[in-house]
């Protein structure tokens, strides 16, 4: 698996800033390197600046400050059509007045590629997305999923080294989205294309990417492989944004290298946590625990802390049970347990003890 941190970064953002009105920075000091053949996803809520970054890379927006490099060459002042970057849009952007084959032929024609060669490439690209028989159709005669396959084929037909995808699956239904997620990752890895993918859907980001850059407020909050992102969030935004998360507020009372004690705000109970983003004793902190790492009436050894909890709600979800608890004065603590034959089903009002391993409990910035 390619690593973005190696010296031959293919795409590089060096201290890039972007402002539209001269007053507010939409992208603040972006430093990012994407390795050759890497599948990088930019994930974030809307307005976080991820699409702006993509547009700067494609050439539709200019960077206010800093340098963008592609294959080691600065591309800040190169117009979009000379960058040779394939792009897939959320609304497919298939030209409605051209047939599917004509759409695919367009990037080849503007590159003055001969007719016979064009036809070969178009056929290969259509076969690649399993749409070989649809060359004569108009985009309006295709379903959303088919249109997106064609858009993908069009972005790949001129064999670019870098493909940008701007929420390409946003308009599709869940099942289709999952199929296409799989196909896109497969294609990207087979062809060895570098892909920068923008989405606000975290499942999509986690399942498809080599690395994920989580954007918020114009900055990259964390850039890491999906498993790190989920299991080792660096700050509370990432912890809250990726997956379901239980957050407990408190104050650090003692701090060592790999252990800290946090006094919870509500009840004053003390728990052990892994210090990630706390600097000194007396700091406010937000403790993050994943719902599936919590156990009822735990038997986790003497290091484990237990807390008193009261069941507020029990939801049967098929493969898991979702239990909402009142913990440390807050009633939004979620616990997920697998649906096993021996699993107890709690009813509202019951008092239970909950606990977890200290390393699953991360003390982050407040």
């Amino acid at each position, binding site marked *: 698996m390619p690593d973005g941190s190696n010296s031959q970064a293919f795409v590089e953002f060096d201290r890039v800033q972007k402002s539209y009105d001269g007053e507010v920075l939409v992208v603040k000091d972006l430093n990012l390197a994407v390795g050759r053949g890497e599948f990088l996803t930019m994930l974030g809520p809307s307005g976080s600046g991820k699409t702006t970054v993509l547009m700067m890379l494609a050439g539709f927006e200019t960077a206010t400050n800093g340098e963008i490099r592609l294959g080691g060459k600065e591309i800040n002042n190169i117009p979009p*059509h000379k960058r040779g970057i394939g792009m897939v849009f959320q609304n497919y952007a298939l030209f409605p007045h051209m047939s599917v084959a004509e759409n695919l032929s*367009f990037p080849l024609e503007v590159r003055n590629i001969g007719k016979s060669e064009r036809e070969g490439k178009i056929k290969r690209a259509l076969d690649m997305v399993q749409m070989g028989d649809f060359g004569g159709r108009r985009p309006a005669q295709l379903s959303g999923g088919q249109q997106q396959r064609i858009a993908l084929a069009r972005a790949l037909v001129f064999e670019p080294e870098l493909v940008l995808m701007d929420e390409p699956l946003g308009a599709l239904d869940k099942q289709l989205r999952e199929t296409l997620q799989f196909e896109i990752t497969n294609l990207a890895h087979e062809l060895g294309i570098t892909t920068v993918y923008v989405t606000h859907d975290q499942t999509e980001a986690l399942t498809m990417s080599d690395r994920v850059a989580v954007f918020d407020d114009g900055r990259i909050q964390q850039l890491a492989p999906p498993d790190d992102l989920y299991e080792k969030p660096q700050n509370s935004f990432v912890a809250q944004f990726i997956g379901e998360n239980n957050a407990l507020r408190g104050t650090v009372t003692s701090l060592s290298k790999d252990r800290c004690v946090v006094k919870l705000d509500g009840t004053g109970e003390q728990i052990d946590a892994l210090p990630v983003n706390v600097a000194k004793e007396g700091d406010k902190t937000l403790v993050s625990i994943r719902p599936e790492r919590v156990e009822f009436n735990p038997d986790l050894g003497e290091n484990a802390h237990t807390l008193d909890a009261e069941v507020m709600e029990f939801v049967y979800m098929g493969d898991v049970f979702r239990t909402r608890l009142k913990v440390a004065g807050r009633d939004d603590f979620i616990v997920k347990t697998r649906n096993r034959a021996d699993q107890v089903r709690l009813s509202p009002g019951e008092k239970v003890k909950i606990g977890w391993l200290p390393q699953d409990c991360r003390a982050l910035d407040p």
Partner: protein
Amino acid sequence: MANATDPDSYTGATPDNAIRDADRAEKTGQMLAADGTPLKTSLARSLRAQKLRALMLIAPLLIFILVTFIAPIADMLFRSVENQIVSETLPRTVQALDSWDGEGAPDEETFRALAADLTIATELKNHTRLGSRLNYETTGISSLFRQTGRDVDEIGEGYMEQFIELDEAWEDPATWMTLMAADSWIENRAQWASDKAEAEAAQDAATTAAEAIALEFTDPEPPFRLNDIASDALPRTASIFRQFARITQTENEDSPAEEEPWAIIYQALYEDLSAGRGDGYEGQAATLIDEARSAVVGFEDQSIKDYFINEIDEDWGSTEVWGTIKAFSSPYTAGYFLASADLQLTAQGIEKQPEDQQIYALLFKRTMFMSLTIMFSCILLGYPIAFLLSNLPMRTSNMLLILVLLPFWTSLLVRTSAWKVLLQQQGVINDILVWIGLVADNDRLQLINNQTGTIIAMTHILLPFMILPLYSVMKTIPPYYVRAAKSLGATNWTAFWRVYFPQSVPGIGAGSILVFILSIGYYITPELVGGTTGTFISNRIAYHISSSLNWGLAAALGSILLALVLVLYYLYDRIVGIDNVSLG
């Protein structure tokens, strides 16, 4: 249900039966509803009430459109071929002209018919209208008819004198009543007369004026009825006498029983009697007729043809006048359409108009050429403006849109007059060109009162009709198409030409149709700034509607214009496709 277990005898809704039904339907090519009726019938029945309600809902508007829009157009189309005035005013003449050979004046019989028709027409004052109608085709007929109207009442006076000389009774209206009036009418009239006398006596006896007014007798005389013997025995006389009686009663409000008949009636009587007709009368009337019949042989014969040609106007002997009457004698004519195509209808068939009167083909060609020029100018000027408008931020584009619409809030006349000020030889534009040195002072450009003026002024006036549909179509073209094109490697121009422009074509289509159709029928601006070389066919139509009053020709020109527009519309549909027109 003796054999209920046999699947084939089961009649309910079973899967087997459904398959059988489907098979049957496939064979007959018809889908069946659950109750076995054809699905189409069933559907139509269920929708009928809905359709009816919808129709009732739009009925007022539909009727309004029919009355105010469809009906006038239909009337106009009808007027362009309608020509009943000739056959209605000159029925006898038109019939007599059937046997005319088309050379010189027709025979005496035709002139007799003409005399009868014209006497009646003159009494009804219809002859001048007919004269004007035929004057469109042959100049001079209007004054000929007017002249004839003044002299035609003298025809037959010679015979009248001879009849009276023969027997004084011929002068007496009562004689004519015995010969012509139906017995029932005489009785009715007697009844009416006694009622009237009684009423007048009562009125005389009234003491106050108000009472007298209340008692006033206002019933008109019962309408005249011809008797059967007269129309058999003396057909010509009877036919004219009936007209005489009707006109006397309705137009002059007199009684035919008291008025002396027209001279032309004696003429007709002479014609009837000298042809040997007049049998069927009894008693005194028979004696009178027999006596007259044996006397007419000795009457001095008077030629009406000679009278018309020598006494009234020698034009009555010309082939042209008679040819025109014959050519336009049918109730429907292609004459107006032929005239619109610079052709004319004569007794010999279709001929070209004389060279100096051929204007319509030229005008149609000029109208088409100038409308197309205006349309293309509008596309050239409007496209960049619409493009700018659709790509600017909302606030700015709305402001600019108001500037586009501003001309609509100014009177058309003001705008056109402004162009007069700008474009005239001593006007602003010429002054600037002279000042820059592009044009010599003694050689200023002629920018108005010609085609240039019309094209400039009309392009300005019709420009919003191009910009608005273009703008609303361009508004709907998302920016990501051009982005996609650029990301695929297209230069700005290629992205515009191959991706943006084809998607804006529906707007160009809609704008072009609007501008072209508006300009093809434009009237006021060419009239004001067009001079003689910059006028349209519509100016000619307006002239025929309001000045020459030749509505038939105006209608024909209008119909041709309508047909032209429809043909162009059809061609547009074939070449570009009418679904490729969008107003946004």
